[in-house]
């Protein structure tokens, strides 16, 4: 019974939206890549790089918004690397992606350790403060859930709308989707499959990195090695769950974060009955279940994982 009351609590839904933010960015980024026909398994590492880059930028005197931009830039750089390998050289997207994850994770850990060699306790920055919008924030429930959030969360919600509009309503977005379905058709329109895929992967990776940066610059105030902790892989599952639609991706991320927030509350209330490790397993178990449930209905972009070679039929 008490659990049902939980769903009426404002704090619960505010926490859900906050926890969903990195997942929204990550899922959206992966979605853009996959819509263009490129699986980006580099997501886990790119998020870690974003975490590190954004935090370090602010720690060494940059301000928060340029930190977000810097994280996005680092993400786009790794995206460029991924697309050089998978799009231009036509290498295996699985293995390259894992390689990018390893590289980005190791590099960010290495650079962090070299920049701050003697730090025993993780140093802190002043993160984004929750917004205090005068009128909107005073609306009873909606105000606390939607408007008293970090501005990065608003950026995430805006990004969902922007990406959805871009993919559905603009010629460039339609070309991007067509690249994932039928690259030959794109080529015959006189557009370059290579350019479209490269730009899509770079943009998607930038979004992932911003999702990572949210972790260190808004959710927490310090960087830990291994802090992404599988969120990237969860995003990949969420993309399948969303059937490659931005709106459903938002829904999936919120649903997922709600489960996560729920397990945390149950953990606090009934800690001793079930060991805490089993609660921590829940997100991963949910991801697998989500994959299984949606597998029948999933409509993969037709050209996903297929490298495009010019002039080949």
């Amino acid at each position: 019974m008490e659990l049902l009351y939980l769903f009426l609590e404002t704090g619960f839904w505010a926490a859900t939206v906050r926890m969903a933010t990195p997942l929204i960015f990550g899922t959206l980024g992966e979605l853009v890549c996959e819509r263009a026909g490129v699986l980006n398994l580099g997501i886990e590492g790119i998020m870690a790089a974003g975490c590190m880059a954004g935090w370090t930028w602010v720690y060494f005197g940059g301000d928060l918004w340029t930190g977000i931009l810097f994280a996005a830039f680092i993400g786009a750089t790794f995206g460029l690397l991924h697309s050089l390998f998978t799009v231009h050289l036509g290498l295996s997207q699985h293995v390259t992606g894992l390689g990018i994850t390893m590289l980005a994770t190791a590099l960010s850990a290495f650079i962090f350790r070299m920049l701050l060699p003697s730090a025993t306790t993780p140093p802190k920055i002043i993160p984004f403060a929750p917004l205090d919008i005068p009128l909107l924030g005073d609306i009873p429930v909606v105000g606390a859930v939607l408007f008293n959030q970090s501005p990065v969360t608003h950026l995430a919600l805006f990004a969902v709308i922007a990406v959805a509009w871009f993919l559905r309503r603009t010629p460039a977005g339609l070309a991007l989707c067509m690249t994932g379905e039928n690259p030959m058709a794109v080529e015959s329109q006189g557009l370059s499959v290579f350019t479209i895929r490269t730009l899509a992967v770079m943009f998607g990776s930038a979004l992932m990195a911003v999702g990572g940066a949210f972790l260190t610059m808004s959710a927490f105030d310090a960087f830990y090695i291994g802090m992404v902790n599988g969120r990237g892989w969860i995003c990949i599952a969420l993309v399948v769950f969303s059937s490659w639609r931005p709106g459903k991706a938002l829904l999936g991320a919120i649903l997922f974060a709600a489960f996560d927030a729920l397990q945390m509350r149950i953990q606090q209330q009934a800690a001793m009955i079930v060991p805490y490790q089993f609660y921590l397993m829940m997100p991963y178990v949910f991801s697998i279940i989500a994959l299984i449930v949606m597998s029948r209905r999933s409509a993969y972009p037709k050209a996903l994982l297929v490298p495009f070679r010019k002039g080949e039929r």
Partner: protein
Amino acid sequence: MVPVGAGVVALLFCSVLILWAGGSPVEAFELFIKGSVGSKFALSETLTRTIPLIFTGLAVAVAFRAKLWNIGAEGQLYAGACMATWLGTGMLDLPGWLMIPTLFSAGALAGGLLLLGPTLLKNWLAVDEVVTTLLLNFIVLLFVNWLVFGPWKDPMAMGWPQAAPVVDSAVLPPLLAKTRLHWGIVIALASGVIVWCVMRFTTWGYEIRAVGNNRQASVFAGIPVNGVIIRTAFISGGLAGIAGVSELCGLKGYLTLDLSPGFGYSGIVVAMLAALHPLGVILAALFVAMLSIGADSMSRSLNISNYIADVATAVSLLAVLVSMMLTRYRIKWR
């Protein structure tokens, strides 16, 4: 030739990082060689590190041959180690010549079963096995976390989160006196040769390669594709499980959370460096082991973060991918 080129690229890239960190690459390279193969101790450490990498490398190589993207070797390794701990810490009381094969088979079974789930989901429901095996790694690690902090926690371990040590008859004897090198290396080398023979000379191996190269043609040729993939999963997961048993019985002696510093993931690098060739895996595993042991000792002497080993491993993976593609191009004279 190809892996050598990849190694050179990795070393060059790391030299840049070392320069940035204020060290001298030449000195670093000397220390790296000294630390990985420069003395009897260093060499034995490198060979000890090679053992699990051969197993996980083989596991990945076999699976990737059949285009079964098993990224879950890490979880399967721990599954094998858990099984061996369960049976080997007092439940079974067998003489050593029987105990060790029993533990290895049981560990292999555990690893195989863990990969069976994602494989069946792939076969029946077309659920992408990359994500499911990856996510299972996290689940298994949390499970082991629970075991070593909870029911399996050794009361004699001064509060450290570790399970009870395996019984004496389950310990793999050391191969060289005064080193940590154990008989696992012999088993690993033998496994490499056996896997190569199976892949090269048997129907099983032929079917695995056929399914990987052209699934549709295999269906038309009457190969039971789903069955072959399940069989591949058992071999792959089994090898990864054995990696866990060998680390447990040969090196650590008890189950902890640092039994594997990501051997499952390095296995992917090993397999790719070897171009998925089982005998090549042995050499590639030696190379990756050198990288991590050598870089570890080098970074300690130069006061550089030891994450440089991970960077070098990742760069060599990416470099080998590119160089493998480049070898497909030939200059033709006519």
